[in-house]
């Protein structure tokens, strides 16, 4: 069965669930959010990604109603949320610390929001049991939060915030307290639950891998602004700035001057070296400073000069990082520039041809790199 691609952001007819309209938030002299405009659509899994202090948590707290914008508007289903207190919003939040009520059992924690909504008792029972099933917590219903493990607590927090079937669920660094293995499992669980319930999720995280795994769109933030919003693949393959390229994954940045040539630019990066060529849609003036961003896995590494490669350069292996499935070679180019090249270890370690101090050829295609003007 062919699935239509989920991309309401490309559909001009689609009505966004959340609209940030020129939102600015200041705390005293500090500007946490700077004139931000962004739409988020229903059923999206929207990730806010950035280093700490970039304003992602402030954005989330404004959606929950714990903070109000200093300027601008936040609309939820077209309604201005400025005067609506947190307890009157169809928005629920999963807290970073989980914020489970320690004096209540798992069951009562999940039922808490339903009781406040004056739901009839039999309906509460049914809903809580459904949530316990969804998060596989049936066995722990009678336990107190301190009697269960971290992973189970995280699931209780999720069940509690989903119980009221909110239009929008906010997740504040939800997996921060879990170890790597459990975090991976939980990421898939989250996606699964998001699909089953059809709730719109907005997740705040500083872990780029987590954002890439779960999100339908990722917003990379820096100093109160959104630098780029795109699908994980676009963010990775076509970052719009050096900041985004550098924040998401590993990247080599080569600075140079651009000269138009063919359907792209020649980039002169060091004196006495042949320029690199790159195809791009980016418009640059003749001689403009620009940056070439190349992912390590897009760079081939070989002892012989490869025939017919678009860009080649010779260098010397300085360091090798062996990661099991991959190896990253740190190669020094003439002039001292270090480049990282990554290859999959398809052969056993003892059969590998490359080692320290070897002279090697690096190569990549004209489309393997991204030209950035800032």
């Amino acid at each position, binding site marked *: 069965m062919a699935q239509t691609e989920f991309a309401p952001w490309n559909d001009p007819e689609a009505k966004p669930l959340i609209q940030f309209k020129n939102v600015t938030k200041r705390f005293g002299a500090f500007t946490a959010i700077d004139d931000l405009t962004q739409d988020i659509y229903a059923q999206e899994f929207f990730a806010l990604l950035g280093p700490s202090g970039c304003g992602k948590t402030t954005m989330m707290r404004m959606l929950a109603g*714990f903070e109000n914008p200093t300027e601008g508007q936040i609309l939820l289903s077209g309604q201005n949320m400025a005067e609506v207190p*947190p307890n009157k919003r169809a928005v*629920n939040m999963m807290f970073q610390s989980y*914020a489970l009520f320690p004096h209540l059992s798992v069951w009562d924690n999940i039922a808490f929001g339903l009781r406040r909504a004056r739901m009839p008792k039999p309906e509460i029972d049914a809903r809580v049991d459904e949530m316990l099933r969804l998060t596989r917590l049936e066995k722990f219903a009678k336990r107190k939060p*301190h*009697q269960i493990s971290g992973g*189970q607590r995280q699931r209780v927090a999720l069940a509690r915030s989903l119980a009221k079937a909110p239009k929008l669920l906010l997740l504040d660094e939800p997996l921060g307290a879990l170890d790597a293995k459990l975090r991976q499992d939980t990421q898939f669980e989250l996606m699964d639950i998001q699909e089953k319930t059809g709730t719109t999720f907005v997740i705040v995280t500083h872990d780029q891998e987590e954002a890439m795994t779960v999100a339908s769109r990722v917003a990379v933030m820096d100093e109160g602004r959104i630098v780029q919003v795109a699908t994980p693949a676009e963010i990775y393959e076509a970052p719009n700035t050096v900041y985004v390229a550098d924040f998401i994954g590993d990247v080599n940045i080569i600075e140079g001057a651009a000269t138009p040539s063919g359907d792209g630019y020649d980039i002169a990066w060091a004196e006495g070296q042949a320029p690199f060529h790159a195809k791009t849609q980016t418009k640059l003036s003749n001689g403009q400073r620009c940056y070439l961003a190349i992912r390590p896995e897009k760079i081939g590494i070989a002892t012989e000069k490869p025939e017919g490669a678009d860009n080649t350069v010779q260098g010397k292996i300085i360091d090798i990082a062996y990661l099991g499935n991959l190896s990253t070679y740190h190669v020094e180019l003439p002039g001292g520039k270090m480049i990282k090249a990554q290859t999959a270890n398809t052969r056993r370690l003892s059969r590998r041809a490359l080692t320290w101090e070897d002279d090697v050829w690096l190569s990549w295609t004209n489309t393997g790199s991204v030209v950035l003007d800032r």
Partner: protein
Amino acid sequence: MRRFSWFNATSLTLGFAFLYIPMIILIIFSFNASELVTVWAGFSTRWYGELLGNEAFLDAAWVTLQVAVMSSTIATVLGTMAATVMVRGGRFMGRTLFSGMIYAPLVMPEVITGLSLLLLFIGIGLDRGVLTIVLAHTTFSMCYVSVVVSSRLVSFDRSLEEAALDLGCSPFEAFRLVTLPIIAPAVISGWLLAFTLSLDDLVIASFTAGPSATTLPIKIFSSIRLGVSPEINALSTIMIAIVTVGVLTASIVSKRASVAQQRDEQAAARAT
């Protein structure tokens, strides 16, 4: 690590002796058959019997209990409210002044507190009696409650309240359903502290008590001026017994709670 040493044993003995010998003597002499407090004349429970027949003492005890319960309850409500505002209220005009004024009675000499309250009650024409003692005790014990409660609130995870709001509670419901149950131990110990302070206050009570209502400490103090009667020994022994039972119960209950919690946590750790 637990080795016996003469130094430890001696200091322990001296310390306990210093604390408890006066009380032990008091308890022993409460069972003295003689009318003279300092002369032992055999074992008897006579003074306990006489105490039960002493209307004045029983009245004073009843007044003291009423005052202690009422004043500590009011002080707990007000002190908890003050603590909440100070820890949660953020910055508001006069916050520093407000917190300074709440804690001032802690360092204010009791004589001054008592005198100022006396002047106030005379000024507004309030007849001195149970009501005035309750008001006076509330005034000075409220700050103790707010100190105890606010120290608990400072370490209270704010996101719990936010979670309650997020799940549909009004701010008052969030306080009643989430904050209060969690800080309850601090509120209860604040109440107990206020209760004890009220129970044994002499100075402030003697300023604010009237002829219609006398508390036990005032009664004891004034009868001592006429010479120590063995009845007072009996009364004091009863008070010591009540306090001892109360303290032991409280510590056993809290010890059991913490042991149970530890056991649960260990069980949870094994289950994962």
